[in-house]
């Protein structure tokens, strides 16, 4: 039983909390050191490369104007490429009318849907700038988000930078509220920590930036689903670093219906098997070119948390069901209390870094329900991982058009 329980107790539950607390304490000490021994330096955006923002979408006529308005005029050396991936609504005409009124906006329209990867790749021949930034067409950016996301590229070793994705519709219903806290915990805080120890393996599709040279080297996006994670891993494999810009914030609409959420998470979990366990498993081999220990660590982290612990968790529950005794409810309640307490500790760290503490505090009040939410997601994870391991369900998903998924390789 201990074999099953210990990893869950000491790895899974405090996964984000320990890292977040360590990060926070380290940052505090750093600030204290700066305060005592260094003169304070103002935070300025002194790196300003040329960027192309690619907004690819399908049937996003309603949300696209808001996205474009949030982008326009926020960065001086910027071009925008809008790619309509075969929409049946007014997306192209809306984008075109925006382009007519604003300089530096290109609209590309495809008659037939080709998938998100090819839509993003379609923008590349039209972009000559140093940095390519991807923004989902149902998202909008916070002020200075573009400035924040390009600053890490000052280091020529950096190939990709992930922005923070937060829930725009956080208070729409309980499902979105739970996701909003999850995004704060896993993306805002989790990626901050992962970036610090150089094991960040994902650049959000909703808001991520890539060095053009790195994109050319790896040939752009591959067929999805999970194309954003796949591209990040390939960029890491080609020798670049991947960083996180916590204050480059993007607000996106999260699924409002439970079944849509499950479908989305199922897709995300498939990507772990497809990419980390199959396609890019060579990243962990010391014999592969551009091998880095951080890449191996990244794979170990994914295998452990996303695959191994998922199975262990359910194995533990099965074991518990077969060894039921009077203290089990108390034991489970203790786990629940510990989990919630750690979530509140995580919330404290989030508030320490937050740009909008009041909003994030309200979002964090959902923490007592998070264990139940996580329980459901664990079930989805088990289902998705198992089906992907045995039947490769990802290549039957409608996220990619049929003619593309029939032609592509089934990893």
């Amino acid at each position, binding site marked *: 039983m201990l074999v099953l329980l210990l990893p869950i107790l000491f790895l899974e539950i405090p996964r984000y909390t320990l890292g977040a607390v360590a990060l926070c304490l380290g940052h505090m000490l750093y600030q204290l050191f700066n305060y005592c021994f260094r003169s304070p330096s103002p935070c300025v955006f002194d790196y300003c490369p040329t960027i192309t923002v690619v907004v690819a979408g399908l049937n996003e006529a309603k949300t696209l104007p808001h996205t474009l308005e949030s982008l326009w005029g926020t960065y001086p050396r910027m071009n925008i490429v809008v790619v309509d991936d075969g929409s049946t609504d007014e997306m192209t005409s809306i984008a075109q009318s925006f382009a007519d009124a604003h300089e530096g906006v290109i609209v590309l329209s495809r008659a037939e849907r080709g998938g998100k990867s090819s839509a993003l790749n379609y923008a590349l*021949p039209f972009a000559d700038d140093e940095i390519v930034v991807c923004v989902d067409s149902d998202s909008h950016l916070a002020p200075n988000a573009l400035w924040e996301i390009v600053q890490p590229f000052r280091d020529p070793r950096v190939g990709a930078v992930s922005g923070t994705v937060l829930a725009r519709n956080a208070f729409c219903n309980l499902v979105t509220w739970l996701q909003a806290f999850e995004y704060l915990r896993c993306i805002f805080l989790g990626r901050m920590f992962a970036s610090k120890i150089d094991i960040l393996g994902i650049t959000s599709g909703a808001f991520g930036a890539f060095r053009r040279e790195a994109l050319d080297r790896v040939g*752009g996006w591959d067929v999805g689903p999970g194309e954003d994670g796949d591209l990040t891993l390939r960029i890491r494999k080609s020798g670049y670093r991947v960083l996180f810009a916590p204050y480059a914030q993007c607000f996106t609409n999260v699924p409002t219906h439970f079944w849509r959420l499950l479908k989305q998470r199922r897709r995300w979990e498939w990507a772990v098997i497809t990419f980390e366990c199959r396609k890019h498993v060579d990243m962990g081999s010391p014999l592969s070119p551009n091998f880095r220990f951080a890449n191996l660590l990244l794979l170990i982290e994914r295998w452990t948390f996303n695959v191994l612990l998922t199975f262990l968790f359910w194995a533990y529950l099965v074991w518990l069901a077969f060894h039921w005794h009077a203290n089990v409810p108390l034991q489970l309640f203790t786990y629940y209390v510990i989990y919630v307490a750690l979530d509140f500790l995580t919330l404290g760290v989030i508030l320490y870094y937050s740009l909008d503490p009041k909003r994030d505090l309200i979002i964090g009040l959902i923490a007592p329900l998070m264990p139940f939410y996580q329980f459901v997601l664990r079930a989805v994870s088990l289902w998705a991982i198992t089906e992907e391991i045995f039947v490769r369900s990802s290549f039957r998903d409608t996220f990619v058009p049929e003619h593309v998924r029939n032609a592509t*390789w089934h990893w």
Partner: protein
Amino acid sequence: MLYDSALNLFCDAPSVDVGPCGSAPYENPKAAERRVAARYLFTKPMAVIPILPDHSPDSAFRGDAISSDISASGMGFEIDALRSFPGRRMLIGVEGDDGLLYYATVEVRNQCECEGRLRVGVRFVPHNNDLLRWENLFPTLQPCSYQFATGLPESTLRRWVEIGVLEPFLADRPLLCPRCHALPTYHQGCKQCGSARLDNQRLIHHFPCAYVGYTEEFDRTGEMICPKCRVRNLVVGADYEYLQGPHRCADCGWSGTDLETVGYCLACHWRFTLRQAWQAEFIGYHVNRLDPLAIIGPT
């Protein structure tokens, strides 16, 4: 429309003194001029404005008259006040039934005093000598300079406006060369240098690896090979599709989708963008024209 109504109006006019239009020609034994065309009795109040050598109106000699007869090539009228006209060319305005004056340029063929009045025979001038011809009243392209100008100087036309013969109207607002105001041609050109020498490149989307690149990248050895995943013998439709690519300028190498509307001046060969073009205001002049054939009617 006004002009059309005026024509209809004059079709009915001859019924005043003689038979309706198209009746047998009337032989006026007192006619001073020697017109070969059949003439018709035609009595209407009219204004007579002599034209000075610089084509401006001679307002001092302006007088009111009564027409006596009309033919396809000329007309006769009688005027009280004048002994003789200072020049040969003049503008006559014949009052229509609507009270408006309808003008024509005429040339005095003969004039004589008769019973204390001056009887004048005039001929309608040919088109190339007509003061009221279209080229004189509307800015037209000058073939040598590629610029637009009216046949008569602006100051002269304004004098005709002052006496109520011409009526100015905004005819057009064309976009002309900002440097010399001459006629340009417009084309969709390179956003950077304005050149019209653009190639529209095609892209290929390879389905299996989602790569999108120029056709040249795929077809380097005469065989279709994906530059990203190295798959050979690609078949269009099954493995890849064509997409529209950006335009590329053959002169400066610029690449993009958004073309600029570029103007090219035919006179000074200046290249400019549409936003730089000079917006001119073409003022044309409207006149109520007298049409003798409409008055006479079918013969």
